[in-house]
């Protein structure tokens, strides 16, 4: 089998799995889950084969043609795709395995695993796509599978609402994305990524401010950047493995991946905007995370914050002097840094989420961290792996997060001090709330029955945790990442000399400050220390968190729905009522009038005849 066939196989396997599950295994949850997991395993294996084999290729077939317009489906397998495929495949597989345990007692297991398979299919589609139309297709499918999986507990109103919200908000982003793709098609005559890159190389590319901006909209939606970040915290209504897979490791990262794919189209102004959007999101989410009580919500905001960092990195880095020296490198330093962080983040955030899942499972679906506590002894594996995850995310030197975060901070420092400051502050906050979470969840005494009765999860759940912990530790080393990312890794900015020292210092400082203050500040109690000690601050942060939701709720309920009602009213009253019924009524009135002319009186009729005769006579006399 050629590598191309492998790639096609890796794309189609999960689709086949989903189809088989949907058609035949609806009631055989166990079989379905094993099938899906086996598929994921195969994907992971093939993705590793593809990654290591080293062959990079492209191929496409025409799928639709009208006149000169054609949509093709194809595969562009370069280093970037290989890296992403590896992340999706491996993390996906581990999460599948985890789900075997986590979802074991779920009645709708088949639906869940079917959904996971569809998701894998869609995500791999994005990864392998060689043109923007194809990306868009799978982009939408990813949104759909996300909807499907968030909606898993559909009997809960909150889950149904969250799924709906996620889908719609994503669509809002896709609005711009699709416009951008179409604009790209008409501007440059192609949407094929390689052709675009070639055009860029020959300086034949048509640039436009609107184009990257519109395309960025897609990333804003999918990667939950401001102002479309609202769906991601709500998406935690889905089962925890879903949160880990989709809303932490892969799908939300697709925005970053897509940005890297189209970086050739970027223009400086848009990059600046991207940078600021990312920075704002990072800061905002970090602030919100501080006041969360729900273990998954904390992680969700943390994800948001990290995604913000990646987007900011993308926006930052591509303007680094010296990078656009031509050549085949489409990807710039910022993109590489973002991808680097994406990779490490995928590992440790998946780890954290799965850890959270393990906690939730162990504590009988108790998610409020202030009702947990003391899990350190009851769930040792979870505790250790979770700790590794926390350390990775706060950037403990030597762990994966440290390296990627450093790369981003370095970029920021080089490029924009304000952004650097904000990102550094975000890092402080990250350390702060992660340690808060960790401490309150695992240390101290158990504060509820659920926590008291907690138990360690089974092997299917702990094994993925361990694997991910390993990756979280090792993923940041250039030996590993370089192997994974190939040419991408070479672009990752590295600080040298004094810059290196400064970054290291800053990095250590923020980590220490954040982690230390959290360790000292928070008590392992049933109430939020911050809420008690700094009521105003807490209320402010809570307000900050809710303000967007309020705004959107206000828009939906008071603006959009009212506008819709108004238009409906106008339609029913004016169009269908006054105009149409009114017109029919007038005709009817005339009809009644015409009917009333038949008075039954012979004289009146004779008069009609006289009138008629006179009329004819007048015609004969040439009056008319």
């Amino acid at each position, binding site marked *: 089998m050629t590598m191309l066939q492998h790639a096609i196989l890796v794309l189609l396997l999960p689709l086949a799995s989903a189809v088989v599950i949907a058609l035949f295994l609806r009631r055989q949850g166990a079989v379905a889950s094993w099938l899906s997991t086996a598929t994921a395993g195969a994907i992971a294996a093939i993705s590793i084969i593809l990654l290591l084999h080293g062959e990079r290729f492209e191929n496409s077939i025409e799928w639709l043609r009208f006149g000169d317009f054609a949509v093709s489906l194809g595969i562009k397998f370069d280093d970037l795709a290989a890296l992403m495929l590896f992340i999706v495949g491996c993390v996906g597989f581990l999460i599948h395995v985890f789900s075997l345990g986590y979802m074991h007692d779920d009645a709708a297991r088949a639906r869940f695993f079917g959904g996971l398979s569809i998701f894998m299919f869609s995500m791999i589609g994005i990864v392998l796509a060689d043109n923007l139309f194809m990306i868009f297709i799978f982009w939408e499918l990813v949104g759909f599978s996300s909807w499907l999986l968030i909606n898993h507990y559909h009997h809960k109103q909150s889950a149904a609402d969250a799924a709906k919200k996620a889908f719609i908000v994503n669509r809002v982003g896709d609005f711009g994305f699709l416009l951008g793709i179409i604009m790209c098609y008409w501007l440059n005559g192609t949407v094929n990524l390689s052709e675009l890159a070639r055009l860029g190389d020959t300086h034949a590319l048509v640039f436009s401010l609107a184009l990257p901006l519109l395309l960025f909209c897609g990333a804003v939606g999918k990667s939950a950047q401001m102002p479309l970040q609202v769906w991601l915290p709500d998406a935690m209504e889905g089962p925890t493995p879903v949160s880990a897979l989709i809303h932490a490791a892969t799908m939300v990262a697709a925005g970053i991946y897509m940005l890297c794919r189209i970086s050739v189209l970027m223009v400086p102004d848009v990059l600046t905007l991207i940078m600021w959007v990312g920075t704002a999101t990072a800061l905002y989410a970090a602030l919100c995370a501080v006041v969360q009580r729900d273990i998954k919500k904390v992680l969700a905001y943390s994800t948001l914050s990290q995604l913000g960092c990646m987007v900011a990195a993308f926006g930052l880095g591509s303007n680094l002097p010296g990078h656009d020296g031509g050549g085949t490198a489409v990807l710039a330093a910022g993109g590489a840094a973002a991808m680097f962080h994406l990779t490490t983040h995928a590992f440790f955030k998946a780890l954290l989420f799965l850890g959270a899942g393990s906690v939730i499972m162990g504590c009988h679906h108790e998610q409020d961290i202030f009702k947990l506590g003391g899990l350190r002894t009851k769930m040792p594996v979870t505790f250790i792996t979770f700790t590794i995850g926390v350390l990775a995310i706060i950037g403990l030197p030597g762990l994966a997060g440290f390296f990627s975060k450093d790369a981003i901070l370095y970029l920021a420092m080089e490029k924009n001090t304000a952004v650097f400051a904000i990102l550094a502050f975000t890092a402080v906050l990250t350390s702060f709330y992660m340690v808060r979470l960790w401490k309150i969840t695992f240390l101290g005494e158990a504060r509820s029955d659920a926590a008291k009765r907690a138990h360690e999860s089974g092997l299917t759940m702990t094994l993925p945790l361990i694997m991910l912990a390993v990756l979280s530790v090792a993923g940041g080393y250039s030996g590993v990442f370089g192997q994974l990312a190939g040419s991408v890794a070479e672009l990752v900015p590295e600080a040298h000399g004094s810059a290196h020292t400064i970054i290291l210092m800053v990095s250590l400082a923020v980590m220490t400050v954040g982690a230390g203050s959290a360790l000292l500040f928070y008590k392992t109690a049933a109430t939020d220390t911050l809420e008690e000690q700094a009521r105003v601050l807490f209320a402010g942060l809570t307000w900050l968190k809710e303000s967007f939701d309020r705004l959107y709720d206000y828009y939906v309920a008071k603006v959009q729905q009212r506008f819709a009602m108004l238009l409906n009213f106008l339609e029913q009253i004016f169009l269908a009522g006054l105009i149409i019924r009114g017109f029919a009524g007038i*005709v009817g009135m005339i009809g009644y009038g*015409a009917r009333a002319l038949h008075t*039954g009186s*012979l004289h009146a*009729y004779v008069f009609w005849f006289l009138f008629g005769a006179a009329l*004819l*006579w007048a015609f004969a006399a040439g009056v008319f």
Partner: protein
Amino acid sequence: MSTELLQAIAASNEWWALGPELTLACGALALLVIELISPKEQHRFIPHLASMALGVVLVGVVMNFGKTWGEEELFGGLVRLSVPGQIARIFFLLSSLLVCFLATICLPRARAPRVEFYHIVLVVTAALMLLAQSNHFVMFFVALETVTIGFYILVSYYRERVLSLEAGLKYLVLGALSSAILLFGIVLLYGAVGRVEQGGIVHTGFEYGTVLNFLRENPDNFLATAGALLVIGGVAFKIGAFPFQIWVPDVYQGAPTPVTAFLAVSSKAAGFAVLLTLVHRVFSPLQAVLVPVLSLLAATTIIFGNLAALKQHNTKRLMGLSGVSHAGYLLIGVVASLTVPWAAGAVWFYLFTYLLASMAVFGVMAYVAGPDDSGEELDHYGRLARERPFLGAVLAVGVGSLAGIPPLAGFMGKLLLFVAAFQAHLYGLLVVAVIGVVISIFYYFGWIRAAWFESWSPPAPGAVPAPRPLPAGPTFIGVITLAALTLATVLLGFYQQPLTSWLLE
């Protein structure tokens, strides 16, 4: 003048050519004789005899269609045999046959005398056929008056019913008035043309050909134009064109159902047969006046007929007013035929489809109506489709065809008219016609709605007639006849060859 000469002239009256009319007249007389000599219990065969007479003649005419008669003038130019004349004969025979069928339903129910009815129908049919073939204003007037007086009697045939008599009275007064107008027009034409000597033979303004020649030379003669338009006015009364349509609903409502059908179909068709002849063969040089007059009549007729029918709930009045609008569409065809010759065929096609559909609807009406058929409202159809699905289906097809809904024959009729109108550049009239058709959908489908959709409630509050029990269903012959009409209506929508091959040659 010697006897021989008289005989020679009399010999030129080729009676054989009027075989169908003579047969009917003799048949009518025979009916009277049979009634006198046969025992009373055998009188129930009389309707069948009348139908048989009509049927035999119909078969005869159809079999000899186009064989023996070319374009020739008989009886010294009184009558002209022509293909349109044959078509008219067939039309009137078919129509009368169906009227006799309707009479077999209605007359016994109304306890009305039989033989006289059939007698008059036969005579009127013969007169109608003559009317359509007349080539001379004296012949025309005499035949027309025979028809008209026959209709006076038929309309007021239910002498026990005030409404029937009132309808008869109204029809008589207005009919006589229109006859007077028509006659005055003929007189004016006669006077205007004067004495024309050609090859030693004296021609007068009574002869169509003479009038035509006169008008060719004097197209702006006021007397002749006025006479022509007054004649058109008299014909407009027959076809129920605006503003001579005002009698239609009252008379249709009061008349017995078979007579209403007879009026709606035969009388109207006779008007159009005459109008086509006049417009083409007599008044054609007056196009400058005729086209605007007829266009105006057509437009106003369509609009008035449809609007007045819109809120009508009495089925007979509805048929009458909708018939008015049909007259309007047909007038468009007549106008178009002035520039597009084949439009005359289209008019006949339309009339045939109208015959089929109307008779089907009147058949259903006859069955639905009780003994009193003047007060039949749409509400009485409330349970028709449920209790008598056959009648419901016939009604739906008939009404649909009248509304001009594909795939029914009525649509094809309208289509041909529209195409003709388009070719004649009558765009304004087309717009009016389309508006008319759309309005007509309201009441035609309102009727179907009344028959098919249950729980139909009348819009007029306070005047809700009590639901009437449906009378007995159709007999075997009734089923056959109605089914044949329905089937013909449907099939003609799909396959027009049988009609077009004669009408549009």
